[in-house]
């Protein structure tokens, strides 16, 4: 299979690559959002502790 054949996906490139792109986005969302959320939770909790003391 040549590189061109691969990217053209037998004429279904639009559908196949959109589907894989959507898949990649959902995977990245599931990987990254809990990491970002963890940062904001830690920030909120440590700031909350400071608030209690003052």
């Amino acid at each position, binding site marked *: 299979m040549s590189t061109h054949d691969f990217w053209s996906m037998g004429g279904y490139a639009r559908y196949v690559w959109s589907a894989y792109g959507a898949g990649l986005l*959902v995977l990245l969302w599931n990987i990254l959002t809990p990491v970002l959320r963890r940062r904001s939770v830690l920030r909120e909790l440590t700031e909350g502790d400071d608030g209690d003391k003052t």
Partner: protein
Amino acid sequence: MWTWFHRLASPPSFYRFADLCAPWFLVVSLALIVVGVYGGLVLAPPDYQQGDAFRIIYIHVPAAWMSLFVYTFMAVASVIALVWRIKLAEVAVAAAAPVGASFTALALLTGMLWGKPMWGAYWVWDARLTSELVLLFLYLGVVALNSAITDPRAAARAAALLALVGAVNVPIVHYSVVWWNSLHQGSLFKGGGSTITWSMLWPLLITALGFTLLFGYTQLMRMRNELLLRERGSRWVKELLST
């Protein structure tokens, strides 16, 4: 075994367990998905009827499998949350709902992208498609209930109740292609055997396993975050934050 479960169900030990396991789930899951997608896009031969369009299957079927798997997981956690009021189960329900919604949306979207070239339409009001759309709304309902009620324990009970009632939809989605005359094709597995050839099948199994482990990773991470927030007043969280 049971004492091990009991210990794991306590928030601080679960937190440590999740901390230890989550990275491994992520690494193994990504490796499986890369191998599976390579097998699906490059190694598997084109389908004799659908050509290369069938390769959408390697995203569509794992996503659809996850939409049902995560819901079943969430329904079991809901029973535990409602009957035994275990905090960890309440956290599990809240954490699983957005993940399930994302996989359900992906299954619907890739199904539409597959339906257009094969059926001639992005959407038909078919039993399989409609019940999967209902599944998405159930997930979104659980997410909305959890964020609409400020008391987290009351929110968890309401969300668990909705998740449990909605569980009747899971067998409907699964058997819809058998019970109704559907445009959607039937199961690939019939009577113990598979209906597709091995070179097309193995990448599907590998990506599905990869997606499942990815759920393991994101679920552990999300539960960890929720536990920190909900247990903010407890000693173990304060000790954790002070180090």
